C-alpha cells in the first residue's frame, strides 16, 4: 500500500506520515499519563481502606468514585472510545449503564428500604 502512494503523490504522502507520527506521539503521551494515573488511583483506593482513617460508609463511596474514573480511563484511553467509529459501542454501553442503573436503584429502593 505504501509504494502505491509513493509513486503517485510523494509530498502528500509525506505530509500524512508526519501527521500520523504526531498523532501517535500524542497518544503515547496519553497512555503514559493514564497509566501513571491508574496506578496512583489504585494506590489511593488501597490506602483509603488500609489506613482506616476514614469512615467505612465514606470509604465505599470514595473508592467507587475512583473506580468509575478508572473505568473512563480504561474505555477512552486504552480502548480508544474517543476515536472515530465508536458511536455504537458508546450508545450500547450508555444505554446498558442507564438500564442497569434504573434497575439496580429501583430494586434497592423497593427491597431494602421499605
Amino acid at each position, binding site marked *: 500500500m505504501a509504494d502505491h502512494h509513493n509513486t503517485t503523490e510523494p509530498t502528500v504522502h509525506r505530509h500524512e506520515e508526519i501527521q500520523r507520527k504526531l498523532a501517535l506521539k500524542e497518544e503515547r503521551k496519553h497512555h503514559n499519563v493514564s497509566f501513571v494515573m491508574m496506578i496512583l488511583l489504585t494506590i489511593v483506593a488501597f490506602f483509603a481502606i488500609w489506613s482506616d482513617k476514614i469512615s467505612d460508609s465514606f470509604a465505599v463511596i470514595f473508592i467507587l468514585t475512583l473506580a468509575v474514573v478508572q473505568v473512563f480511563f480504561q474505555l477512552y484511553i486504552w480502548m480508544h472510545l474517543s476515536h472515530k467509529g465508536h458511536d*455504537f459501542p458508546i450508545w*450500547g454501553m450508555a444505554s*446498558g449503564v442507564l438500564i442497569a442503573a*434504573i*434497575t439496580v436503584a429501583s430494586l434497592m429502593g423497593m427491597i431494602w428500604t*421499605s
Partner: protein
Amino acid sequence: MATHESHKKRSGLMDWLTTVDHKKIGILYLLAGGFFFLIGGLEAILMRIQLMEPDSKIFTGELYNQLLTMHGTTMIFLAAMPIIFGFMNAILPLQIGARDVAFPYVNAVGFWLFFFGGLLLNLSWFLGGAPEAGWTAYAPLSTVAEDTGVDFYVLGLQIAGAGTLAGGINFLVTVINMRAPGMTFMRMPLFTWASFVTSGLILFAFPALTVGFFLLMFERVFDANFFNPDMGGNVLIWEHIFWIFGHPEVYILILPAFGIISEVVSTFSSKRLFGYSAMVFATVLIGFLGFMVWVHHMFTVGLGPVANSIFAVATMAIAIPTGVKIFNWIFTMWGGQIRFTTAMLFAVGFIPTFVMGGVTGVMLSVPAADYQYHDSYFVVAHFHYVIVGGLILGLFSGLYYWYPRMFNRVLNETLGKWNFWLFFIGFHLTFFPQHWLGLMGMPRRVYTYMSGQQLDGANFVSTIGAILMGLGTIVLLINIIISASSKHAASKDPWDGRTLEWAMPVPTPEYNFAQTPLVRGLDALYVEKAAGNGEMTPAEPVGEIHMPNGSILPFFLSLGMFVAGFGFIYSNWIVAIVGLGGVLVTMFLRSVIDDHGYHIHKEEVEADIKGGRA
C-alpha cells in the same frame, strides 16, 4: 488471494448438523420451534379438555401444574423465540444485502444450544415429571419443590438462554456492520429495525435471567439461600429478577411481529409504509420503555403506592408508541391496492386483535383495578390476546409471506384461508370468554371449578375454540406437506415485493447476492422497479466470494452443555465435569484449528448468473 481447497461439500444429515449458512440455520430454527409449538399446543388442548366440564378429573393436581408450566415455558422460550429467530436468520441478512450474519459459527452455536436446552427441558416428562412451579417459577414454590422438575427447568432454560443471547449479539453486529452500500439505518426495512431493537433487548434482558437462573440453580443444587427468608434471603428478589427479564421478553416477542406486519401490510397494500420514521421511533421507544415497567406484574406484592404508581404510569405510556404503530398500519392500508392473500389476512386480523389485548393491558396497568384482575382468567385472556392474537398471528403472516423465499414453494392460498379462519375464529372463541371468566372470579392455574357458578358455559366454549385453533394448525401442516410434495417452484418475487429479500432468484444462492446490491432508497427493490430497472444495481463487479466452512463443533459444544446439564440435575459431578470438559475441548479446537473458509470462484459465480441461478 489463496484459494482454500479444504472445502468439501457435505450432504444430507451431515450438512444440516454442520451448517453455518444463515438460511439453513433459519430453517432449523423454524422446524425446531415449530415442533415445540406443536408440543406446547398439545399441552394447551389437554388443559382445555380438563377444563371443558366442571369437576372434571382427567388431568388433575400435579399433572395439571406440569402441563400449565410446560405450556407457558415451551411456548415462550422454545416455540415463539426460535420461530422469530428463524425468520430473523432467514430474512434479515437478505434484507440488508449481506452475505451472511456477522458470526456464522456463533449462529450455529446459538441454534444448537437452544435445541439441546429445549430437549433437556422436555425430557423431564419422561424422567420423574416436568416442572410444576409455573413458567415464572416463583420462589419459594420453585425452591422447595422436591422432585427434579424445576432442575430441568433451570438447566434447560439456562442452556437455551445462552443460545438466545449469542443470537441476539450476532444480529446486533450484523445490522451495524454488514449493511450493503447505501443501506442507511433509515432505509432499513421495518422487520430489520424491529429485529435490531429486539436483539438489543435480548442483550440487556437475558443476563438478568441468566443471573436469576444461577441463583435458583445454586439454591437447588448447592443449597444456597438467596430466596430463603429464614437464612436472610428474600423471596422477592426472584420475582424482581424474573420480571426485569420477563417484561422486556414480551417486547422481544412482539416487536418482530410488529416488523412482520409492517412488511406484509405495506407489500399487500402496494404502498410504502405510512410514517416510516415514526414507526422506527415507536419501535425504539417501546424497547426502551419495556425496561421500566416490570413491577406491573407485581402490583399485589405490596411494594407501596409510590412504586406501584410510577410503574403504572410507565406502563400506560407504552400504549402511546403502540398506538402510533396501529394508526400507521391503518393509514398504510388506506387508499392502497389491497390484496387479501393469506399473509395479509393474518396481518389484518392481527390489528384489531392486538388492540383488544392492548386495551386490557391498559386496564391491568391500573394498580387499584389490578387487585381485582390479578391471578384471574382476565390476565390469561389479556396475555393470550397479545401473544397469540399478536405474535402468533404475526408469525403465521410471516410464514405465508416468506415461505417462498425460505422453501422455494408457495403455500396453497385456499388452505391458507382455511387455516386463517379456523385459527382466528378459534382464537377469539377460546380467549374472549376468558375475560368474563376472570371478572367472575375464576382463578388461573387451578385445575378445576365447581358447577353452579355460571362458569360452565364459557369454559365449554373456550375448549371448543381451542380445538378449532388446533384444527387450523393441522390445516397448516397439511398445507406444508402438500407444498413440499408439489413440483411447482415459486417464482423469485411472488408478491411483488418491495424489499431486498425478493431481489434474488429462488432457491436463494448460498452466497445470497452474486454482487452486493446498491441501495438507493427505502424499499430498495421497489425503488428500482419504479425506475424501470426491475432488478438491483450491483455495487461491485463480479468477483470471488469468501464463504465460511461448516463445522460440527457447535453441535458437540451444545451436546457437552446438555450432558453437563444432566450432571447438575442429578448432582452427578463426574457427568457434569465430562460435559463441561467436552465444551472446553470444542472451544479449544475452535481456537487452534485455523479455518479460513473457502472461496467461490469468479467463474462459478458468472456461470450462476448466466444460468439464472444468481
